[in-house]
């Protein structure tokens, strides 16, 4: 009968009793330790009773484990009324013998202590309730009220120890709630007796916005998430923001989907973004972030996918009107049930609660694409250490559902000297694709530009495009890349004309230079010819001089021989 949620660990781990509370079972790897008591503690109003009640109701309705709710503070009527606000009908469950509600009334002033006693009455009472419906689960809320009612704490402590032991022996999965103490986990040190699993709840107010948080302080014999996780008490019970980020194993789809603007898809490798990826569209006020989101929704609905728009700046009527002014008619999709718009004030809850709500909505509606416009309103005045893990959980959740998400984000400043990378340090690393929108103010007009700052896993354009919003819709236009800057709007046209003129001038200049060069070459060639002639003249002179000298030598030798001959020739036998 007992269903167990699959546990991530491969080893056989502790038997667990699923709570059925969204997120808590993921956090604890399947639920609370089965057959053992768990201590849930926190200060007043942080949701202990609600958690315990949901555990019991879900156990009775979903897991076939009836339960006993023994309360020491509220009476059964009050509890039933509270439960109704979460959609649980305790009366009906009690009538069907799924649960037993037992209110233990204890009033110090009505009790007189005389001598020895024990709490066997409580045991009998609880035992009887358990036996009457075959209960597997028990909630004691909050057993600490006994400390106020019974003066003899020594007896009480001994009896509580015995009680928890007794519950364990009977194999009851129990939740014992306790009030948070000053220095200890609970005011009366219940953690001493309940050592298997301790969950603390907390409600903190930051910037006037309160957030409930849950933390598994201890879970003997089981791995668990140790962080603080925000949770929400909503209309469908508790939701703990799931801990899917414990793992990073979501499937990566190779499917690409259109952003709804053909030229933008072109910039993203020609095919748009991957299904299940997250897209950040950042930019300062009025750069057209929401319009990109609307175009994306429009495209999704045209494909027949369901889309969810979470609007934090405009009401849904306003969104519909404004988007129809640029040719995006979302109303038809709302009517067809393909589009849901949830508009709420970002200051209504803390960011975590918003995210938990998004979660609930996403689970209920099951959309293919989600647009959050803008996410920056949620992260307002929050430090990034807080924002990032929360957002990461949401993104992980959406990715696991293969939901493609567009987050718009308002950046401050917007001057082109700031590096845009600095403006979104907290969230950018979580995003797969980042589109940056910019206002370029120049020449008496302001124009929008767009570029792809990053896009994981695909070739993407490095170009800046002009982003044009007009009656028929959104379009991207090539910007003019001049020598010094990017030109948009009329400046682009003017610059283009100017550039053409300059090109003509340059062309003429080149021709002139070529002519000059040709002239120069001719002059040089003439010079070379003259030098050649000079060299030849000199050579001839030298040759002439050499010939003359040779002749002289020859002549003088002949002369000498002639003289010798004339003198007798005896000495000149050699000449023969």
């Amino acid at each position, binding site marked *: 009968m007992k269903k167990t949620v699959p546990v991530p660990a491969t080893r056989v781990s502790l038997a667990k009793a699923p709570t059925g509370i969204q997120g808590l079972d993921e956090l604890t790897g399947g639920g609370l330790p089965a057959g053992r008591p768990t201590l849930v503690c926190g200060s007043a109003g942080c949701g202990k009773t609600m958690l315990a009640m949901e555990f019991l109701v879900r156990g009775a309705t979903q897991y076939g484990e009836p339960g006993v709710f023994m309360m020491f503070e509220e009476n059964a009527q009050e509890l039933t009324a509270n439960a109704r606000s979460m959609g649980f009908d305790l009366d009906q469950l009690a009538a069907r013998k799924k649960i037993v509600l037992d209110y233990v009334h204890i009033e110090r002033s009505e009790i007189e202590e005389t001598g020895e006693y024990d709490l066997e009455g409580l045991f*009998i009472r609880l035992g009887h309730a358990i036996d009457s419906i075959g209960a597997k689960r028990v909630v004691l809320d909050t057993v600490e009220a006994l400390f106020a009612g019974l003066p003899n704490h020594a007896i009480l402590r001994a009896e509580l120890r015995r009680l928890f032991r007794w519950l364990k022996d009977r194999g009851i999965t129990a939740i014992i709630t306790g009030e948070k103490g000053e220095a200890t986990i609970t005011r009366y040190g219940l953690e001493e007796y309940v050592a298997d699993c301790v969950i603390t709840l907390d409600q903190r107010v930051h910037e006037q916005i309160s957030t409930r948080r849950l933390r598994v302080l201890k879970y003997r014999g089981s791995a668990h998430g140790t962080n603080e996780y925000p949770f929400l008490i909503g209309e469908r019970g508790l939701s703990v923001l799931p801990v899917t980020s414990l793992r990073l194993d979501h499937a990566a789809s190779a499917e690409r989907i259109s952003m709804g603007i053909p030229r933008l898809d072109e910039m993203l490798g020609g095919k748009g973004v991957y299904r299940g990826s997250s897209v950040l569209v950042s930019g300062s006020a009025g750069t057209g972030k929401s319009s990109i989101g609307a175009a994306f929704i429009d495209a999704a609905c045209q494909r027949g996918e369901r889309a969810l728009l979470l609007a934090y700046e405009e009401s849904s009527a306003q969104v519909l009107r404004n988007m129809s002014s640029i040719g995006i008619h979302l109303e038809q999709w709302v009517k067809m049930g393909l589009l849901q718009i949830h508009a709420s004030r970002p200051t209504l809850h803390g960011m975590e609660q918003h995210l938990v709500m998004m979660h609930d909505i996403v689970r209920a509606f099951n959309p293919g694409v989600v647009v959050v416009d803008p996410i920056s309103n949620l992260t307002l005045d929050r430090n990034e250490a807080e924002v990032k893990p929360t957002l990461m959980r949401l993104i992980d959740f959406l990715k696991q559902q293969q939901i493609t998400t567009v987050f718009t984000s308002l950046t401050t400043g917007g001057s082109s000297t700031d590096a845009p990378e600095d403006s979104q340090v907290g969230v950018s690393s979580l995003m797969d694709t980042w589109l940056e929108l910019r206002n370029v103010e120049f020449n008496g007009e302001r124009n929008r530009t767009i570029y792809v700052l990053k896009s994981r896993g695909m070739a993407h354009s490095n170009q800046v495009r002009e982003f044009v919003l007009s009656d028929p819709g959104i379009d991207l236009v090539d910007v003019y890349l001049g020598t010094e800057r990017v030109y948009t709007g009329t400046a682009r046209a003017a610059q283009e004309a100017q550039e053409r003129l300059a090109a003509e001038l340059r062309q003429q200049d080149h021709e002139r230079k070529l002519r000059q060069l040709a002239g120069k070459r001719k002059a040089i060639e003439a010079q070379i010819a003259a030098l050649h002639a000079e060299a030849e003249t000199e050579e001839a002179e030298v040759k002439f001089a050499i010939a003359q000298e040779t002749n002289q030598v020859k002549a003088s030798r002949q002369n000498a021989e002639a003289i010798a001959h004339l003198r007798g020739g005896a000495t000149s036998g050699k000449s023969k």
Partner: protein
Amino acid sequence: MKDKQPATFELRLYVAGQTSKSLAAFANLKRICESHLAGQYRIEVIDLLKNPQLAAGDQILAVPTLVRRLPEPIKNIIGDLSNEQRVLVGLDLQPVKL
């Protein structure tokens, strides 16, 4: 008070089995009643082991518990009733000064 309220004292002693504490409580109760409420009281002993459903119905936690059902208001006295003074205070009986 005793004179103003001639109605009988309806007392119930809740015990869980024949433990030494419950036996002691019954003996103590009997003795106190005899000496202070002779003829005006009725004691009903309820063994919760036999009637466990009564524990919830009568808001019993500790055993032994003595409940004064009448006269109103209902009073609870827990313990083995060994401290006579406190039992008398609990029952709203002025201790008889000897």
